[in-house]
């Protein structure tokens, strides 16, 4: 047992940190710090910087652009990217469909799609959720009927993040309605330019429009865009969701937010002293830091166990802890920022969140506090709600 990072790991951390800070464009960095919305081009720019360095998809198999780093190095890499803070790569390509294609796709699909994902030439979105399905994902009703060398897809997806920019969508579709719900599902790749696809934005309570409904009416999809075998899509989805869960703690993001809160609470001269000099506020913050440090150690234990096992495909059921506690702490940081911003939480300034130059009401960083608080309520809902995660712990770990 050696609980410290090795010298090599520390040097690696220094290397990636330096690279991120030296190479992130200043305007993108500023937007990240102020929690302003990123534009599509921002993500493309950053992804291509990473790709040029060979770090676009470090966790993929080496033959498709991966770096071969072990899980601990990968953890350090992503954590440092979050702490910079730099944009996370568009997850739908890099973390979701990419690994699925690399693992279950055929050679033609790999050659066609993977390099374009790594370079963000294709913008992907995710077509899993459907209206009314919620945590019961497998109850999906969008159906694909074979017609010659095409599938004809009809149905509706929802909560499709950033579909407005998307070139491609990966979908779970029902190809056999006559069997148990999990075994009649297939995994299809669909070009968003195909006739019959309509995208409608859903406005969320933070004022943002990052999620959408996607409607499919007689959309013809070539059978070559089926991943793996027909009716095995649920297995691929579980693989994908498992990957999602272990990354969801986002410890680097919470760390960066705490640093930012300390900075802002130290500057602000509300009342007779900066907030940070208030014992209660300081202790509330410290309590979050303790839990976050504990979660970081927990994350490292999971990562190290994964490194030992070597089977990256199967998520540790303990990753449910990462999801629950990670989301709670992300939400806690948004509440702390609400406390710092005080009465200036009230003005609604969507233009500022999107980065316009209009003069702000109050502090120039105040505009995003309430929208971030509202928006981040989602993290305890999506990716398998925290209630579902506790069911998983009770059953898979405790045997209840």
């Amino acid at each position, binding site marked *: 047992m050696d609980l410290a990072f090795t010298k090599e790991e520390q040097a690696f951390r220094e290397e990636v940190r330096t690279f991120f800070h030296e190479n992130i464009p200043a305007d993108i960095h500023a937007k990240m710090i102020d929690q302003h919305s990123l534009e599509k081009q921002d993500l493309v720019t950053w992804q291509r910087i990473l790709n040029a360095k060979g770090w676009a998809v470090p966790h993929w198999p080496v033959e498709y652009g991966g770096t071969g780093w072990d899980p601990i190095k990968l953890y350090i890499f992503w954590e440092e990217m979050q702490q910079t803070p730099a944009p996370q790569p568009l997850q739908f390509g890099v973390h979701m469909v990419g690994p699925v294609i690399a693992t279950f796709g055929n050679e033609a699909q790999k050659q066609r799609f993977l390099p374009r994902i790594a370079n963000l030439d294709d913008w992907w979105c995710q077509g899993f959720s459907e209206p009314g399905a919620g945590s019961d994902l497998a109850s999906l009703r969008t159906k694909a009927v074979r017609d010659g060398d095409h599938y004809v897809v009809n149905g509706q997806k929802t909560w499709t993040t950033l579909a407005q920019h998307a070139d491609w969508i990966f979908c779970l579709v029902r190809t056999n309605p006559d069997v148990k719900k999990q075994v009649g599902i297939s995994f299809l790749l669909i070009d968003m330019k195909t006739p019959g696809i309509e995208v409608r934005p859903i406005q*969320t309570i933070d004022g943002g429009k990052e999620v959408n409904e996607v409607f499919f009416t007689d959309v013809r999809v070539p059978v070559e865009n089926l991943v793996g075998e027909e009716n095995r899509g649920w297995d691929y989805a579980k693989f994908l969701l498992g990957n999602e869960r272990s990354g969801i703690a986002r410890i680097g993001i919470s760390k960066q937010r705490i640093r930012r809160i300390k900075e802002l609470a130290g500057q602000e001269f509300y009342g007779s002293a900066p907030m940070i000099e208030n014992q209660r506020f300081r202790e509330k913050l410290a309590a979050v830091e303790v839990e976050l440090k504990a979660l970081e150690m927990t994350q490292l234990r999971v990562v190290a166990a994964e490194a030992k096992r070597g089977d990256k495909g199967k998520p540790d059921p303990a990753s449910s802890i990462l999801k629950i506690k990670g989301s709670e702490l992300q939400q806690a940081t948004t509440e702390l920022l609400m406390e710092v911003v005080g009465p200036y939480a009230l003005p609604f300034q969507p233009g500022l969140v999107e980065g316009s130059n209009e003069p702000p009401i109050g502090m120039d960083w105040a505009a995003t506090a309430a929208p971030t608080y509202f928006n981040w309520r989602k993290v305890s809902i999506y990716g398998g709600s925290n209630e579902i995660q506790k069911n998983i712990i009770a059953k898979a770990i405790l045997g209840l």
Partner: protein
Amino acid sequence: MDFDLNEEQRLIKDSVERLLADRYGFEQRKAHGASERGWSADMWAQYADLGLLAMPFSADDGGMDQGPVGTMIVMEAFGRALALEPYLATVVLGGGFLRNGANAAQKADLIPQIVDGSLTLAFAQTERHSRYDLADVTTTARKDGGSYVLDGAKSVVVHGDSADKLIVTARVAGDRRDRSGIGVFLVDGNAAGVSRRGYPTQDGQRAAEVLLEGVRVEADWVIGEPENGLPLIEQVTDEAIAALCAEAVGTMSVMHETTVDYLKTRKQFGVPIGDFQVLQHRAADMFLMLEQARSMSMLATMMADEQDVAERRRSIAGAKVQIGRSGRFVGQQAVQLHGGVGMTMELAVGHYFKRVTMIDTAFGDADYHLSRLADAGGLIAA
């Protein structure tokens, strides 16, 4: 001790609830909010017709003498409807300054205009660095012959863009954060030297930044003692906090009812999600937090006009703590139990969540008042 409404109160409650049920549906509210001033002049006229704008004023002043309980009834109904009109700003805050601080001439001039719906007011108090401290006033009022000249900037003035007149706090003497030397001034919204920048708020209402540059106010339009206005300001904001507590209870009630309904109708894994014991207990926890909030709203109502100032302030602070904590829990859980759709503007629940969140930041959040209460010795004498 009697927690039941009397006949008259019951009548008021029924009529305001009926009006709002008829005229304040989800789509109607959206239309009201989309108008230029952000609220409905037509509804305002109807409130006047119903006598709602006369509620807290004494019969001598042309009011209905319904006291804090009347305000509680109206505000709870407004909370249930998420009504956008400036009732708190005009009747509770503005009316509060008149009731508690104005002289006979001022009352005789202004209260009838409030009652008939022709005058709206807004309370311009917060400044860039004041946070929730009512004594932290740097806007100045310089005596100049028979009038005062005001200079300064007021921030996040709720309904400040559409208000006919502003009630402005300004310092006639002393240093920033001194308790003495703060006066209350009635300023015409279109007076020379007043500039207002209006904007929408997170909860679908409107507010304004107000700049005061050499604004002249006749001494007739000082409310109360200009050298010692803070006790009046504290009295009126305590009344406003009590009103906000009632509004929050209305807001939470709807979120709780909506969530319980959703649990009964929404199916997942083949059963109503309300069959899951964890969600049943969550709904029970929400109910408990709601009822605790309702109890403290009643306490705040009871104490809003308490003569013992220290006891009034402690009770109001305690109520705001409970409301803030209950509101956060009930709001967050209402969204959580609705899942993704609870996060959209298409469902009412998210709008209620935003309003209850913003009520917490009004006049001091839960933690602020907890500190105040603790410093004042708590609610139970040692």
